């Protein structure tokens, strides 16, 4: 098995599913001839034709809305929104339509679409190419929101998402695209949606996180392990619906929990994780739940010092871990 990047793993998943199922097709801005602005869909139009890897007009509601129509008729569209920040014009189609089609038709119709979008900062993308938008969708029953943290998970979760019979939002951390590499199982490989994953087992504290922050947390945990600290890292992988069982199990085991997200602190996915722990683990806790997140400002600034100030990184996580360990 060769090592491949997070980005290549996503391309492999798309290629695998398009090769296997003629109903799978891709649509989005610049996904065809250019192969995507990040090159995630590189080569797919050449292989599967213009209509199955379609360069759409610059209109996000159209991308998602037409994908919904095709999905209701039996296709399995994978829509790409070029940057997660630009998903907002399509939110009516996602929240009012995709999320509710199965429910409002009493299970007669369904909407098997995947909406992929690169999110996250640390790449000098400023306000409108850096945002974490998962919290906007992570309180909408009917949707599934998936955020992989490793190349293997990216491949396995995307294949699962394409085969899922309900709408899945699939957010890819753009800084992870070329930063993360590992050996990824070849061919047909799935990772279940809705299941969190313990990326590192430990006894002293639990860090619950997702996306690029998983890698950052692992780095920080590795450093602290040299001083004998034993840190558990739970990767949510699916941020909606949450894997409550795994959250409760890990929080109860260590009794000390740090929640890490790159999103703004208030009202993030972690606010819900915190509520789950408060409701279920109070008597197992040895310290208040601690959070590390972006500041409550509208979005990530461009200038490097301000960008670094906003971003979560291994140093900030290590510092918070120590604070919790010493509590």
């Amino acid at each position, binding site marked *: 098995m060769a090592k491949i990047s997070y980005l290549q793993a996503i391309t492999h998943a798309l290629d695998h599913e398009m090769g296997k199922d003629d109903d799978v097709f891709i649509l989005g801005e610049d996904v065809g001839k250019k192969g995507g602005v990040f090159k995630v869909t590189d080569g797919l139009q050449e292989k599967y034709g213009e209509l199955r890897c379609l360069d759409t007009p610059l209109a996000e509601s159209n991308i998602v809305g*037409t994908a919904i129509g*095709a999905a209701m008729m039996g296709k399995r569209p994978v829509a790409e929104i070029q940057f997660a920040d630009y998903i907002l014009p399509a939110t009516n189609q996602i929240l009012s339509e995709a999320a509710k089609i199965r429910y*409002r038709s009493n299970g*007669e*119709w369904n909407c098997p679409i995947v909406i992929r979008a690169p999110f996250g900062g640390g790449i000098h993308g400023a306000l409108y190419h850096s945002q974490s938008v998962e919290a906007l969708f992570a309180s909408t029953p009917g949707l599934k929101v998936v955020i992989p943290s490793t190349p293997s998970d990216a491949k396995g979760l995307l294949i699962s998402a394409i085969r899922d*019979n309900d709408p899945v939002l699939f957010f890819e951390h753009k800084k992870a695209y070329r930063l993360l590499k590992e050996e990824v199982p070849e061919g047909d490989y799935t990772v279940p949606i809705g299941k969190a994953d313990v990326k590192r087992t430990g006894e002293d504290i639990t860090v619950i996180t997702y996306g690029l922050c998983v890698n950052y947390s692992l780095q920080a945990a590795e450093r602290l392990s040299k001083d004998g600290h034993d840190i558990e890292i739970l990767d949510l992988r699916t941020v909606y619906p949450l894997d409550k069982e795994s959250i409760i199990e890990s929080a109860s085991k260590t009794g000390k929990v740090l929640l890490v997200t790159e999103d703004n602190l208030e009202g993030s996915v972690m606010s819900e994780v915190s509520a789950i722990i408060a409701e279920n683990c109070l008597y197992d806790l040895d310290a208040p739940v601690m959070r590390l997140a972006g500041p409550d400002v509208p979005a990530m600034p461009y200038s490097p010092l301000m960008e670094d100030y906003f971003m979560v990184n291994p140093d900030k996580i290590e510092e918070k871990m120590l604070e919790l360990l010493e509590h």
Partner: protein
Amino acid sequence: MINHEEVGLTDGDVKEMYRTMLLSRKLDERMWLLNRAGKLPFVISCQGQEATQVGAGFALDKEEDVLSPYYRDLALATHFGMTPLETMLSAFAKDGDIQSGGRQMPGHFSKKASNILSQGSAVTTQVLHAVGAAYKFKLDGEKRVALTTLGEGSTSQGDFHEGLNFAGVHKLPVICLIENNKYAISVPTRLQYAVDKLSDRAHGYGMHGEHVDGNDPFAVYGVVKAARERAVNGEGASLIEAMSTRLTAHSSDDDDSYRTIEEREKNKEEDCVVLMKDYMVEKNIAEESWFLEIEEEFKLIVKDATKEAENAPYPKAEDALRHVYEEVDNG
């Protein structure tokens, strides 16, 4: 009204069209009565737009074509296969409601077996679903069309523009039918758009545009039939504007006070069901006895459907928890 034979319709076709128009009207009128009697919380009407809907529906292939309708399309849905009982079960939000299992307000059509896509309440989203369905037909080389309908108010939404633009680019087999009843709740056309004819916007999307008298089912049939031909022959989408009349208030929660009594009275002169009957009498397509016969027939159908729906149980309270995601049977 144009002569029905001009567009290739037989006397038998005309009778069938009238039957669907009248049945839909009777169902609609009964729902208003039930609302005013306190038995239904809400009604939204097709009254005055039956000619447009039945004319359009008649031009399609019910087995192959797909509808992405809007909330006034009772006559269109009825033509495509929504039964009076299904309409009443939905109106009463009772168990067995095919459209939504009692979840949605009435007028939110859905029936998979009749190729009617599920609708929400946010307007114009359905246009993109029709365009997406049409893209599927293109991908799979199928000779089918998707018809979407909307009020003229919905043409102000972004999804209208985005959908028609995409349909134009790919010459998709989709027909976008504006049922222009001149009011979006209370807002008249002069405050909704500045063009003379909304169908002129077709030029901007590189597609065929057609403006038609929506109170004339034969004229609507003719233009939709031609649009369907173009669509399945790879000649692309059509934007059709049918000038129609809203005979009721927007809904049972609206008092229509923004229209003068004179205007509302004058609208009755354009009642397409009355005009259709006059035409049929004038052309000797049906005898008075035939009209009396179907009046009686529909009275019974509507009565029975109402009674059965009224007596049906509600869905169970805990059914509110079902069908959020695919229900996988692990047993």
